[in-house]
């Protein structure tokens, strides 16, 4: 098996596990496992034909339905994709069908990834193209349980996602010489609430509000925001394999433009956008509520604004790519430098 396929398998399996864990399923993991075996088989075959929806553009967000993907739901519901001449279908990942697997199997044509995630995958040999960058700021935070500055908690237990996303935190831990004891977990929030960890990593739009929702007294004193301490690296963007991109440039461009239009509409109509998000949330039986989704949408939209220009720019910043690559190389999370040119759609 080529190296990049191995890398893809590992990442797919991590995402698969992540989604299984999120569902907290105990008795059904066996059936999940059975399905996994089947998909690994398919992965090995790597059938590079479009098995679903001939002529349809399948988009798979990297996570279950939530306001993090509001712009894409809006673009679909408001007909922006249709106006662009695209027949788009949004297929959320499942334990048996994680996003990256769908991309590699050509079952989906695009997915969302964080910049550091995408760089890790590219470093493993999978060529990905960023066709739309939505996030302009980093959302990762460390929240301390004891109401103290996380930078003072040297050597203490800090929750981290067992499914990944913690690249930047690992770099920061090395550079700041904090010697955190990482506690990988499927759901950081519960460990934190129960007092099993001293601090936890969280996304400012997701786990952060989940922590607030548990009634814990969270204030700025006990929150370390990566974006404010020299680790401001962009996150969510839309990626597809370079192979697919080379063959469908026009389609990719149209999807990116219509998606951008969806985000701009969402920023202008937050209440209606929230209605659309909640429709997807209900359809997918996601354990959340409108208030959490409202806060998530507000934060996601805030993160899309470039701090320096004050505008929603929808572009990958070369300086941030360089910053992320240098950090990950220095901390040995990358074997090679990943450049801006490697990421962008030329």
């Amino acid at each position, binding site marked *: 098996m080529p190296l990049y396929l191995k890398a893809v398998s590992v990442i797919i*399996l991590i995402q698969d596990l992540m989604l299984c864990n999120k*569902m907290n399923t105990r008795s*059904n993991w066996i059936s*999940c496992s059975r399905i996994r075996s089947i998909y690994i088989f398919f992965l090995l075959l790597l059938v590079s034909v479009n098995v679903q929806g001939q002529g349809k553009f399948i988009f798979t967000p990297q996570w279950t339905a939530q306001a993090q993907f509001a712009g894409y739901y809006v673009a679909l519901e408001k007909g922006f994709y249709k106006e662009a001449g695209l027949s788009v279908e949004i297929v959320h990942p499942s334990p048996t069908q994680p996003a990256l697997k769908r991309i590699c199997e050509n079952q989906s044509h695009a997915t969302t990834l964080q910049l550091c995630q995408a760089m890790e995958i590219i470093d493993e040999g999978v060529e990905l193209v960023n066709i739309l960058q939505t996030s302009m700021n980093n959302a990762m935070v460390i929240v301390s349980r004891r109401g103290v500055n996380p930078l003072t908690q040297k050597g203490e237990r800090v929750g981290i996602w*067992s499914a990944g996303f913690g690249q930047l935190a690992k770099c920061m831990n090395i550079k700041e010489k904090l010697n955190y004891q990482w506690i990988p*977990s499927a759901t950081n929030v519960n*460990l934190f609430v129960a007092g099993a960890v001293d601090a936890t990593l969280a996304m400012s739009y997701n786990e952060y509000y989940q922590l607030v929702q548990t*009634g814990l007294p969270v204030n700025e004193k006990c929150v370390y925001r990566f974006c404010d301490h020299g680790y401001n690296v962009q996150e969510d963007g839309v990626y597809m394999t370079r192979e697919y991109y080379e063959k469908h440039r026009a389609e990719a461009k149209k999807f990116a433009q219509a998606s951008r239009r969806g985000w701009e509409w969402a920023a202008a109509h937050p209440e209606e956008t929230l209605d659309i998000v909640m429709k997807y949330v209900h359809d997918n039986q996601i354990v959340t509520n409108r*208030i959490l989704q409202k806060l998530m949408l507000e934060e996601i939209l805030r993160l899309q604004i470039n701090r320096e220009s004050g505008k929603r720019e929808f572009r990958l910043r070369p300086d941030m790519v360089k910053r992320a690559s240098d950090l990950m190389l220095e901390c040995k999370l990358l074997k090679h430098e990943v450049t801006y040119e490697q990421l962008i759609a030329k």
Partner: protein
Amino acid sequence: MKLRVISLIKKSLPLRLSLLVVIFAAIVLIAALGFMFGVSRQAIRQEAINRATDQLDNTIQRVTNILDKVEVSANSTEWLVRRHLNFPDSMFVYSHQVLENNPDLNGCSIAFEPYYYPERGRYFSAYSFNDNGKILTTQEGNEHYEYFYLDWYQLCKLLDCPIWTEPFLDYNPDDINSEEMIASYCKPMKNENGEYIGTVSVDISLGWLSKIISAVKPYPNSYSMMIGQGGTYFVHPDTNKLVYQSIFTESMDHPDSAMVELGHAMQRGEHGMRQLKVDNEDCYVFFKPLGSTGWSVAIVCPESDIFGSFNKLRRTVTGTVFGGLLLLMLVCSLSIRHELKPLTHLALQAETIASGDFSKTLPHDGRSDEVGRLSESFTNMQHSLVNYIEELKDTTTQKASIERELKVASEIQMSMVPRMFPAFPSRKDIDLYASISPAKEVGGDLYDFFIQDEKLNFCVGDVSGKGVPASLFMAVTRNLFRIVAQQGHAPVEIANQINTILAKDNDQAMFVTMFIGKVDLRTGHLDYCDCGHNAPVIDGQFLDMKHHNQPLGLIEDVPFYGESMENIKGKQILLYTDGLNEAENSNQEILGNERLIELMQGVQSMDARQVVDMLAAAVEEHRAGAEPNDDLTLLCLRVEG
């Protein structure tokens, strides 16, 4: 409107008295009812607390008994496992046995740390689960299911103690609607050295727990709920909140410190009661922790339920009392109005009488109380008033008659003194002018002058007192002067004779001050006799006299002394009464002799009339509008050479 009501209350005595009675009654009733309601409410509240607390205790006891069985099965399994660690295959038997012995349980895992059994690889977890009554057992861990990253495994490892996980929804991916809420009791396993080696986990469906807790309903609209350690609702009648929301969720959008405080108290494992608004309704919330699970159960009782009957009774009683007070006010008002009706009638009659109709007869209803006595007194007053008015009419008529007579008397009195000026038109050598101004209709001042045998006789007098007696005395004195002076006597003789006549039979002890003078017009020689009168002013200076004599009419046989001046030709002589130098203004300040002398300076060029007019004007100015306090008589004379 408010002013109209106040005005009405002020005008109506019955209304005012009724209000006083009602207000007093209301204060007494409100105090009594307030005390009664307060005590009753406290008793009902205490009863509700006891009732809810009992039900909460019973429910928690029931649930705890069941959860205890789960804990016991996990503990006994852990005990077995520790004694047979060398037989990994026996773990499958133990987990299977747990479900066989406890059919209500959903699953049991005996999971070990990675590579605990090197020959079994990284993952080893014996897992049995109940698949619709059929118990299936398998090795759970593999690279797709890394159990050691999951809460149930991580929590008891990190906390190093048995724990209950937060309840979670377990559902079949093939049938997404078949949700079931599961909770796991997890106990850490340790080897003989006390090192952590894995976790025993027993799963139980919480459907029964939800039913038991939901059934607790001490009041018709009350309900029960349960939250986990993270505040999430795991039992709640609103399915939209169940699992999806925590007790703090709504506070994130609309801050509710009372609800947050309740959530924190429940999370801390406290038990107690809070009074707060839940879904905009005042509620009592009774809460208690559920054993060692970290979960907390609460009963929410709307205040309207607890105090429903009490509030109804209170409303009824309050309404009745209010109605009673209104009725009391009505009865009071009518009774008082009836009792005071004669007063109203009396007031109307009095108004008629006050308008001048004295013929109106006042009612007599034969009452002997205060109102009757007032009515009688009023009738007496009316009679007195009628009599008084009649007397007043007579008096007024008499007064008008007297005034008319006084006017005639005044005219007669004025006609007694010479009032034609110039007094001697044919005599260019005599410049004489005089005026008399009584303070009342008639006065007691007098003056007179006449020429006889080329001698000018003149006098100015002032009778003691004022009014009619003084005027009559003045008339007598003036006539006496004219009669005696015409006999050619010197002024001192004139004074002697007048005094003798006036002093006789002077029972009223009246007297008159007088200055009597006689000028020989040929030589300018002046003889004079001052009878207690003001000193004349000659050429701006008071006349320096040796003898002032007594006033005329006081004592009969007292001698008078006369004086003389050699030649007064060209001199300006002013005779006056004390109405000039003792004229008072409104502050009772007199004009004074100094002012008189001041006024008489530089008037040598004026003729007699101008001098008299100037002095009269000065007196008028000094009085400044005040009523004259005395008669004023002025006489100015100059004999030219």
